[in-house]
């Protein structure tokens, strides 16, 4: 078992570094010499390291309720939505503006950094019909940019914003055992951020624009802090060996029980934790195949994770949050899982 895991680690690293064909990790191909996969890989890593920077969000004045409302009113004046958002609540440092007339409508803004989600409501889109005059996939990005300009939310540095995806929202209906309709409702345009040639991933640094009937602004996600770059001393970065070891451990943790694991991609990115820290990391995506349900031999459940490149990361990565969670109980109904605290909550509160 230990030997197999060691080889998984090395094969995973080789895929990320040399970006070669996917490496399928089965027992029969886990026999390649260690140095055969490690040498070219690490030379590439060194090249990437030369341009590695870290970024910090420029602090913003904390919003109060009135300034959050003013911001919302500003968007409303430059758009066509009529939802009043008369209800305001505070939750975890956010102001949540909503409206009883349509519980899907929300303006949810983080008071500390101004990142927000606006959904002007889907009630008026709930009919069995397609939205009229939706923009085409070709028209949508330009229209989304116009809405960003009109509302004042197009990032100042235009070099940083790149089109990531044009998608949408559809609805379909079935009745009495047959399909009776499939409707187009919204078009979604998603923009990513690129800093110093590296894609920014994670909770922060994204803009999403939802376009509705007649191309109107139906919704927006805006999380795009102004940032300043900081150079990194070489000593701040993990060694190749540390990265290799950590990648292997994470791969084992995420997909250790899989029948086969194929590294689909692994690349250097910047991870924005949404709290003001943007740091270099390796993002690994692997296809993990498990024994499937009765009708299938196996199923692919991809796993993905980040390996921070900094020895002492400031950003909060997903795996760091795991320590805060409480373990569930075994369900006392079955003897196979010995309940540590044989408590049945079925009586409720």
């Amino acid at each position, binding site marked *: 078992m230990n030997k197999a895991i060691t080889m998984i680690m090395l094969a995973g690293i080789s895929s990320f570094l040399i970006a070669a064909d996917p490496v399928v990790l089965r027992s029969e191909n886990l026999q390649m010499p260690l140095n055969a996969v490690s040498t070219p890989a690490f030379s590439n890593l060194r090249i990437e390291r030369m341009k590695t920077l870290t970024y910090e969000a420029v602090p913003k004045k904390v919003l109060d309720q009135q300034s959050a409302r003013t911001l919302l009113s500003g968007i409303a004046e430059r758009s066509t939505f009529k939802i009043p958002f008369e209800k305001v609540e505070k939750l975890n440092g956010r102001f949540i503006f909503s409206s009883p007339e*349509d519980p899907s409508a929300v303006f949810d803004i983080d008071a500390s950094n101004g990142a927000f989600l606006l959904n002007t409501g889907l009630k008026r889109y709930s009919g069995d019909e397609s939205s009229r005059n939706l923009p085409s996939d070709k028209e949508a990005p330009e229209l989304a940019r116009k809405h960003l300009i009109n509302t004042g939310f197009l990032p100042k540095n235009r070099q940083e914003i790149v089109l*990531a995806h044009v998608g949408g*929202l*559809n609805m379909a209906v079935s009745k009495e055992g047959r399909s009776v309709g499939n409707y187009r409702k919204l078009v979604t345009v998603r923009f990513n951020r690129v800093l110093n040639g590296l894609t920014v991933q994670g909770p922060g640094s994204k803009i999403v624009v939802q376009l509705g009937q007649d191309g109107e602004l139906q919704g927006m996600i805006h999380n795009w802090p102004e940032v300043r770059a900081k150079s990194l001393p070489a000593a701040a970065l993990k060694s190749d060996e540390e990265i290799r070891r950590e990648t292997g451990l994470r791969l084992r943790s*995420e997909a250790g029980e899989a029948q086969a694991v194929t590294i689909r991609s692994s690349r250097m990115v910047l991870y924005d934790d949404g709290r003001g820290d943007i740091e270099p990391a390796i993002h690994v995506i692997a296809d993990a195949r498990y024994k499937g349900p009765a009708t299938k031999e196996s199923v692919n*459940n991809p796993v993905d994770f980040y390996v921070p490149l900094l020895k002492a990361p400031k950003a909060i990565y997903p795996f760091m949050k795991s320590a805060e969670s409480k373990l569930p109980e075994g369900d006392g109904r079955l003897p196979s899982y010995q309940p540590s605290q044989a408590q049945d909550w079925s009586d409720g509160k």
Partner: protein
Amino acid sequence: MDQTLLAPARSKLLSCLLLFLTLITPAREVSAVDHWEGGYVGSKTEGDATTPVWNFIKNFTWNQYYWAETFQFDSYNNERVDKMDFSYFVGHGSPWNIKCQTTWLDLRTAGASAHKGWGNNNAEFVTLHACNVVASPLEVADWYSAWTGNDGVFDGVHQVCGFRTSASMSCDQDISEYFGSRIKAGAAVWQAWFDAISLYGDGSERGAAVMYPPCDGDSYAVFSADPPEEHSWLRIWYQL
């Protein structure tokens, strides 16, 4: 009077009124919408399914929090998933299948026992945070029969949320935490699910939600009357 002259005046009046309401109405701490909630963790060993479940149910004074077992969803569901108002499962998935530890559960037949499917007892909302479980018309033309067939799980449940694609594991903790906070605040259910995916997803995963159509606008604070146990009327919303 010319109606076009009145419109800007009305708009300005409305803006002033809203500003006034904002000034006189302090933001309340979020009102607790809290009924009966259950969390079910699909795997002990294949990634961290615990944290995303915990991050959802910690928003509530939850009632059940278990390692997932198939009986919670089928033969004993009246005491588990169908005893809850809102259930949250995280684990591996495949179209209409979820994996409870090492055993797959086929949702197409999970309503075959004496406990029937979900909703004949209590359940309103179930979220299956797992890859590919809620297939849309883009995956298969007959996306509906599996849910409402004789042995399916739609026996009065209002909405089932999930993914029609793979679900990124690096985002699941944030998606569930945000989703839970919005549900507790009284947001419309599937709409908040899609908001959470758009806000915290990595851009690769796509949500899907199936529901009895009159329950489309349900929130956890205000939801419609229970659907009949026997129906074959279904709506799916899905992201592209």
